[in-house]
């Protein structure tokens, strides 16, 4: 199925507690079972440049550890999406997590682009927009928030480019190596997300009406 009027999700297959597949223009975001995790998933996972700002404890990962990591997700409120290209769905280039808190009807998300050959090519914006659209329109949360560490200029850029709302600075909140660094919190609210969707729909309708023969 397709989420109606979505500029971000071209196709959606979702069975709660089983699997969730989102397709964007260039990518697919797929939940996986632990058994589906292969060494291909480790290609960049332990790259120091990738792990530098990733708040994942436990040192280097092997397949077994990655399977354990995967196992903790894919419930009705916790998702681990592996991001891959449409052409090669078995070779992940990154991942995104989404955790929903029912009590407050909000979700936290994070995203990591591991394959360096895709850095600077708009992957984060495209993939995260699909996750946000899923969160707001399928899970029906009111708010999604995310964090980035102050030294992570690339992540900061992405939040700004996607026009998230700056919310807070958590002072010296994370440890990067031996240094304590500030954590910056950004938020996206349902009203703003739906305003963007409505604007996109209106633009599509306008384009279609302009294309109508007189």
């Amino acid at each position, binding site marked *: 199925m397709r989420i109606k009027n979505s500029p971000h999700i071209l196709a959606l297959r979702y069975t709660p507690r089983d699997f969730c597949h989102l397709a964007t223009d260039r990518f697919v975001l797929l939940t996986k079972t632990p058994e589906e995790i292969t060494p291909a998933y480790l290609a960049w996972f332990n790259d120091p440049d990738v792990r530098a700002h990733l708040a994942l404890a436990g040192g280097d990962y092997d397949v077994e550890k990655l399977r354990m990591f995967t196992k903790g997700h894919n419930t009705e409120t916790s998702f681990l999406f592996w991001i891959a290209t449409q052409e090669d769905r078995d070779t992940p280039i990154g991942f995104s997590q989404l955790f929903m808190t029912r009590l407050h009807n909000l979700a936290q998300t994070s995203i990591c682009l591991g394959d360096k050959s895709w850095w*600077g090519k708009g992957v984060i914006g495209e993939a995260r927009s699909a996750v946000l659209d899923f969160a707001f329109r399928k899970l029906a949360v009111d708010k999604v928030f995310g964090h980035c560490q*102050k030294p992570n*200029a690339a992540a*900061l*850029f992405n939040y*700004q*480019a996607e026009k998230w709302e700056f919310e807070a600075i958590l002072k010296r909140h994370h440890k990067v190596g031996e240094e304590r660094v*500030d954590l910056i919190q950004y938020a996206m609210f349902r009203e703003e997300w739906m305003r963007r969707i409505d604007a996109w729909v209106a633009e599509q309708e306008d384009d279609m009406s302009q294309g109508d023969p007189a």
Partner: protein
Amino acid sequence: MSANPAQTGDAASRARAILAEAVSRPVGEIPDDAAIGMLEGWDSLAHIRLIAGIEAALDRPLTTEEVIGVHALDKIAALLPG
């Protein structure tokens, strides 16, 4: 030897030079209203270079509040001494 434009001129000119270098474009192609999402080449990798360029010009790391504000040419100029 010619002077480094990122180190000379007024704050606006230096900001433009730093941004131009970060996005790998000639200074003359950086409009007054250059901002994230509006300027071709200003991507995440360019942003890393931009932050490094501003910090080099200031000879100190940006504060968290300052780094959050780096999203448009005029905001970069405001960080540089006049």
